[in-house]
Each structure stands twice: as C-alpha cells, then as structure tokens.
C-alpha cells in the first residue's frame, strides 16, 4: 500500500516552474529520501504534499485521501517538521511539548507521559525549564522535532530535520526515527547530508530543476550510477610519473603531491592492472593501495550534473 501517490504534480509561480509534473509513490512503513540541490524543488514538493500550498496541476493521494479535495483530513493524519525553525519564544521546552500536544487534542494524561518520554529521548531533560528563546539553534531544532512526536500520525514529513544538530544528536535522531518506522510509521525525508539518506532511507528520489531524475533504493542507485570507482595508490618515491601513465585509457588520473595517485574509472580493474604493470616495469614500489566504492554523494553529484548537462 502506498502512503503517498502523486502523479504529474506541478507548481508554478508565474513563469517559474518550481515543481514540474513529478510522479511519486511512497510505500507504507518505509523511509523515503528526497534529495536535490538547493532550489531543486524539495521544499515546494514538501509544501504540496503537506497541503500547505495547492498544486498548479496533477493529482495527489495521501494516506488514501484526495489531498487536493480534503487537505484538512490529510493534515489530521500527518506530522510535519518544516525546514524553517518554528517555536514559541515565551514557552519553556516542556510547556512547548505540552501545548503542542494540546493543539493536537491529545488527552492531558497522555500528553504528560509522552512529553516525559520525549524529553528523555531527545536529551532535553536538563533544559526542560528553559525558554525556547534562550536555547541554541540545535536545542531548538531538537525541541521542534520532538514536539512532532507528541501526537499520533501515520506519515511524517521531515524537511532537513538534522540541520544545526551536532553529530551525536543527529545520530540519536536518526535512530529514534528508525525505531518509529519499526512501529509502522512512514517517513518522507529531505536532506542535504547524503550519509544520512544512505543510513536511513529505503528508497531515494533525486529532484533537480523541479523534475525527478532518479528514484530507487540506495543500493540500486549505486549499481546503476556508481560503476565508477576511485583508486588511491601511494608510491614509494616522489616522482613525476604523469608521462608514464599518459597512455592509459578510460580513466582520469590526479597526481597529488607526487607520491599519491588518484584514479577515477568505470573500468577500474583493467586500469589498475595497467598502472601496476607500468609501475613495476619502472621499478617503482606501491606502499599503499585502496579502492573506494562510489558514495551516494558522488552518485548524487553525477546524476545532477548529467541532468543539468542534458537540460542545457
């Protein structure tokens, strides 16, 4: 079953097309990563799916509800952590959680228990009496994310939720999200931090210039777009060997500080064999060698670059 089904969804502002006829399907109980460079249309898509703004065209069904006809019914069943900070400056951390629960009509007794759980899960116990205005950006972000778990929901939209968080808070949040998904929650997640998407997401879509240019699991994206590998060779002596390797085809070679060669190639095995032969025939020793598989970040950059090139 799909929690989100959008087809030909678009949003224009005058002549500017922010979202250009995208199709999306998000399965229930999965974490769906939505990646894209700045201004690609991620936040606009999020605003469309959360019914904050109406689309210019297309259809969208959220949790089986026609989100264009019945936006309020959709909003009653979803949670949203927007990219921009949102807080009540005069309220303390615990009061913020309590009031947010009240706004969602959560029973008083449940609010109290849930607030205690979240204060502890998001490491907010020590600052529970502090006013939001006095918190650091990271603390405020933690409160903003924690607050969203005060109410029941079937689908949670997270727009770059880890912005401003330190590494341990970030990992804590990602693990908390994973635990909620195990309990049946579906997550639509945008981020710039690709390690996060790789760690968290079951499926990933990449958007660029308002269009979705790739959708798949992180593993499939890597096997589709990540044939190129990076090889680092540390040779024993500092010597200009660029003329020796100039004849090797199907690769791009970088010579860092003379002793380290970085090779990028989609034919990595053949290229490596050729390089090692040339080095051996010139009596050069290899001190260290490593092969780095393509990261999601490189795939992302490559996919976006190709998309930009084809649209130009």
């Amino acid at each position: 079953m799909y929690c989100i089904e959008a087809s030909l969804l678009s949003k224009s502002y005058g002549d500017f097309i922010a979202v250009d006829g995208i199709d999306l399907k998000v399965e229930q109980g999965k974490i769906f990563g939505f990646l894209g460079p700045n201004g690609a249309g991620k936040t606009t898509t999020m605003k469309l799916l959360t019914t904050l703004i109406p689309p210019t065209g297309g259809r969208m069904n959220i949790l089986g509800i026609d989100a264009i006809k019945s936006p309020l019914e959709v909003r009653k069943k979803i949670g949203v952590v927007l990219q921009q900070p949102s807080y009540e400056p005069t309220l303390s951390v615990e009061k913020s959680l309590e009031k947010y629960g009240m706004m969602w009509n959560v029973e008083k007794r449940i609010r109290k228990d849930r607030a205690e759980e979240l204060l502890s899960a998001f490491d907010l116990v020590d600052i529970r009496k502090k006013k939001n205005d006095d918190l650091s950006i990271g603390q405020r972000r933690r409160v903003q994310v924690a607050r969203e778990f005060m109410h029941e929901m079937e689908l949670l939209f997270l727009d770059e939720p880890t912005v401003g968080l330190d590494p341990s808070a970030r990992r804590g949040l990602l693990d908390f999200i994973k635990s909620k998904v195990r309990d049946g929650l579906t997550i639509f997640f945008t981020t710039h931090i690709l390690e996060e998407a790789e760690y968290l997401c079951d499926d990933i879509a990449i958007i660029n210039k308002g269009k979705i240019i790739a959708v798949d699991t992180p593993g499939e994206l890597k096997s589709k777009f990540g044939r190129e590998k990076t090889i680092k060779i540390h040779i024993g002596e500092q010597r200009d060997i660029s003329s020796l390797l100039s004849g090797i085809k199907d690769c791009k070679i970088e010579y860092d500080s003379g002793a380290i060669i970085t090779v990028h190639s989609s034919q990595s095995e053949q290229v490596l064999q050729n390089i090692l032969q040339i080095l051996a025939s010139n009596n050069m020793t290899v001190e260290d060698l490593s092969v780095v598989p393509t990261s999601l970040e490189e795939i992302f950059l490559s996919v976006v670059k190709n998309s930009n090139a084809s649209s130009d």
Partner: protein
Amino acid sequence: MHPVIRLVNRNLTISLNMGFVIWQILFPLIYIFVAGFAYTALIHQVTFGNKTLDYPAFIATGMIGFNIMNSTLISGIIIWNDRRHGMFEQILVGPFTRAQYILSNVYTIGIIGLVSASMITAVGYPLFFNKVEFNILTVPLVIFASITGSILFGSIASIISTRLKSSEGFNVVINTAFLFFAFVSTAFYPAQGAPPILSAAFYLNPLTYLVDVVRAGIFGYFNGLVATEMIILGFGSMALFLVATKLLSKLEV
C-alpha cells in the same frame, strides 16, 4: 475540544506572560494615579454631556479604552510573532484551517480586550464611582465598545502584521500607530478647548470613539453623537476585520 478553542488556549498561553500582565496593569495605573492627580492642577473639571467630571474620573474612564487598544494591539501581534517564529506555517500544516486560525485570533483579542477593560474598570472605579450612573444601557454600551474596539485594534495590528516583513519596519509602524492612537484622542484630555485642528484629528482616531462610548456607558449619558460614534465604531471594526481576514487568508506560506 474544538480546534478554535485549542488555538485560543494556545494564543492566551503565549500572550499572557507575567510581563504582559504587569504592563497591562501598571501602565494605566501610572496614567490614572500619577497623571490623573498631577494634571488636576491644570484641568480641574471636564464636561461630559450633562455631567461635570473631575479629571481623575475622566482619565480613569479613558484608560479603559486605552487599555483595550493597548492590549489588543499587543495580542494582534500574535500573527506577527507566528510568522516570525515559523508557527504560522506550522499551525497551517496541523489540524487547523486558515479560517480557524483567523477566528482564534479574533477570540483571543476579544477576550484580552474584555479582561483588560474589566481590570481597569475595577482599578479606576474608586475614582469615578460617585459619577457612575448605572442604567439599562451601561453594561451593553461598555461591552459593545470593548468588543468592537478590540476587533478594530486587533484587526489593525493584524493588517500591519501581514503587510510588513522586517522587524524594524514593524516596530516603527506599530509604535507610531500607538503614539497616534494614544495621544491624539479623548482618552487623556477632552476635545473641547483643544486647537481646532487637533480637535478634528481626535475624531480621525478610533480610540476617541471607543473611549466616548465607554464613558457614555459608565456615566449614563446617551445622545445622538454617541449613537453616531457607535455606528462608526461598529462599521469601522467590521470593515477592518474583513480587510484583515482577507489579507490573512491570502498570506503566502
């Protein structure tokens, strides 16, 4: 609980901090007791309809309208604060409609206006009690003035909140509006005796109408001018409320 009530609850919680309450009581008290008695040497008595009032009684009743204006301008700023702190969008992705958000602000402003009016009436009562003339119109007139005045000034603050983007601009506009409303009105001094231009300017100010209707209720004096002022207050608040609602419903997120 109905969504509007939940939003009103939230609005009151974020607005009613200790500083706000102290400010709401202290500020008018200073005017009533310090200015009221200090200016008595200059303004002994003021004629209001068929009554002659001591200046402290005059200013104490003026402070009821002043406090409604002051408190509702502040609570009208809820929208500004919600936009500034991201809560406007957050509420609109929650289980609420835009109409419910707008309505909750109107109710909040109305409640704060009525409570402010009651507080100052209680505090100022010893100063004007000997002139009070309760009649069938007293309570309806004071409540009418409190509600329409609250909606009017709350709408003005809401309109300013939706139109401006920078904090500096917002502060300049709201402070300028406050100074005009507060001091170019009959809240502090009577229109009679003021230079003609200033006296005319008093009647460009909705606070004058609000204060005059409150005084009419408290001192039991009702005539054609008061009726006209009530009509202007009623239509003015309705018109400004419609403009504020329209601007709020079109506010981009």
